[in-house]
């Protein structure tokens, strides 16, 4: 497997193509412009479609249409652009169509800052749009992970017939590093995936004697016998059962140097990467510190946090590029307020340094 030196955006876009993404629509926004630019060059080579929508709203709705037709598809944006996509994301969750939405987070609120941040955690995990729906949210901390997770996102979307979000940030999108890209899926495999959707629920035109293909309220569960459609509450219950299933089957996290740790860092994405460096420095100095890193922020890895022993762990430090912290509430819920939680934060393009983390961890030890 070939190692290449790639920018995050390029690695993401090429991985999507290799996963079989054959429709991409987006609207320019920093720091992820290289994603649409890459697709614009690359899609014609694989018989796919790239479209620059007239807005984020249009782009996400184009993806809704392409997804409804059974094509693997994707849109991406950053922060304030994702806010505009919320409408389409909500519709995709309503109709339960598989698609991939990527957010290369930047500062906020509003136009915020074009520089990187992690200020959309609530939006990604709690309120992607109206209606209380959820996506599985993948949170890469390196370009390698961004490539692998984008690829995986397409399979997850098809598996659950639900959109998936890749929650990355402007750091990872704009950096360059060596990466091994995932395998290109074969045309036969991709054709089989599309055909399976067409045979089941995707739009193709009505077939005599068979139920219509409706991309609307059907939401993954077939209407009861003799009924035109199931009730909204039925659909909410079906979705809720799926979200519960995710808690059993789709939680992913990493424990980093957690053995006998007395201080535990909670961080995802780029903040976890910087935290790992800080932990290595602290361990070398004899500090017992480790990290629980959510690899997916939804479903949140509650169990490893809940398993921390308050008799042994002095404190938790949430490291996040967001002021105020957003992930802290999930950590609090998981630990039931049994362990003191502190934060180490920066926002709107300011980068947390390993020294800041080292210092904040030492403060907890000194308490």
């Amino acid at each position: 497997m070939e190692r290449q030196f790639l920018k995050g955006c390029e690695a993401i876009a090429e991985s999507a193509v290799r996963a079989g993404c054959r429709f991409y629509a987006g609207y320019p926004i920093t720091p992820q412009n290289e994603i649409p630019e890459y697709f614009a060059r690359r899609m014609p080579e694989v018989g796919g479609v790239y479209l620059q929508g007239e807005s984020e709203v249009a782009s996400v709705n184009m993806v809704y249409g392409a997804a409804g037709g059974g094509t693997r598809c994707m849109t991406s944006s950053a922060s304030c652009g994702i806010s505009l996509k919320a409408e389409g994301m909500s519709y995709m969750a309503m109709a339960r169509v598989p698609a991939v939405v990527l957010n290369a987070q930047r500062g906020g609120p509003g136009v915020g800052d074009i520089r990187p941040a992690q200020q959309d955690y609530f939006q990604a995990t709690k309120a992607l749009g109206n209606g209380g729906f959820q996506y599985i949210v993948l949170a890469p901390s390196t370009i390698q992970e961004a490539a692998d997770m984008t690829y995986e996102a397409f399979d997850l979307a098809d598996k659950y017939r639900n959109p998936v979000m890749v929650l990355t940030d402007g750091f990872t999108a704009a950096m360059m590093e060596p990466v091994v890209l995932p395998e290109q899926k074969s045309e036969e495999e991709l054709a089989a995936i599309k055909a399976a959707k067409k045979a089941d629920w995707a739009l193709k035109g009505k077939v005599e004697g068979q139920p219509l293909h409706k991309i609307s309220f059907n939401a993954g569960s077939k209407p009861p016998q003799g009924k035109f459609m199931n009730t909204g509450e039925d659909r909410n219950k079906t979705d809720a059962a799926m979200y519960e299933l995710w808690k059993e089957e789709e939680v992913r996290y990493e424990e980093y140097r957690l053995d006998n740790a007395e201080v535990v860092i909670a961080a995802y994405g780029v903040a976890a990467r910087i935290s790992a460096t800080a932990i290595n420095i602290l361990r070398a100095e004899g500090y017992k510190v480790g990290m629980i890193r959510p690899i997916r922020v939804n479903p949140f890895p509650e169990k490893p946090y809940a398993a921390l022993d308050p008799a042994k762990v002095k404190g938790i430090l949430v490291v996040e590029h967001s002021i105020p912290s957003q992930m802290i509430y999930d950590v609090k819920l998981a630990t039931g307020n049994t362990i003191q939680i502190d934060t180490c934060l920066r926002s709107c393009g300011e980068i947390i340094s390993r020294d800041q983390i080292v210092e904040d961890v030492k403060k907890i030890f000194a308490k």
Partner: protein
Amino acid sequence: MEEVKVYSRASSIPKNPYIGFCPGCMHSTTFKVIAEVLDELGIVDKTIECNGVGCSGLGLGYVYLDNVFCAHGRACAVATGIKRTNPDNIVFTYQGDGDGGSIGIAETIYAANRGENITMILINNGTYGMTGGQMAPTTLVGQKATTAPWGRNPEEHGYPVHIAELLDSLTAPAYIARVAMNSVQNVRKAKACIKKAFQYQMEGKGFSYVEVMSNCPTNWGMSPLETLEYMEEHTLKEFKLGEIRAK
């Protein structure tokens, strides 16, 4: 004497549709015409309908076709995504004037400007029917609406938007027509234009648009018969019928 069948229900309109329209509403006439056209062109099994939000969205349960429930105003973007990835299907949008001409005007203009090979049917009834008669982009000067209780006042609300003519300012669209459903003669003409719009799509010519002048007895506060008169005397004077462009 031999019996000859001279009329039958269009194949995609079921006997007992799940949803209907108010009595005398021309949404149902329009759907009937579209369904007949699809039968005549032999494309029912290839057709995908993108419904707007509004009374147009009731088409989801009125016409039995594969369809998508699009967010308010976004049908042309959704249709773009479907058609670009399934070019062998026939894709059309069915939208209200609020849907395609106000909240979705950007999606409408840009799909038209890209020359997307889709057909857009826009129902111009001068009001927001579904939400109870608020002012629409097409409400006539002086015409009352729940949100313009003294009638549309140009100084405050601007003038009615002529969506067909707006699209006619673009280079890409292939077919643009405005038709009406208020008389037998006009329904016949409307059907010919709607058929032509779908034929344009079948021939790959690009964006085809038919604006259908319609009524809303419920929110105009008139009997269906009175709406026919009102259309003749007022609406059709503001919105001129005919083929505006046929490339």
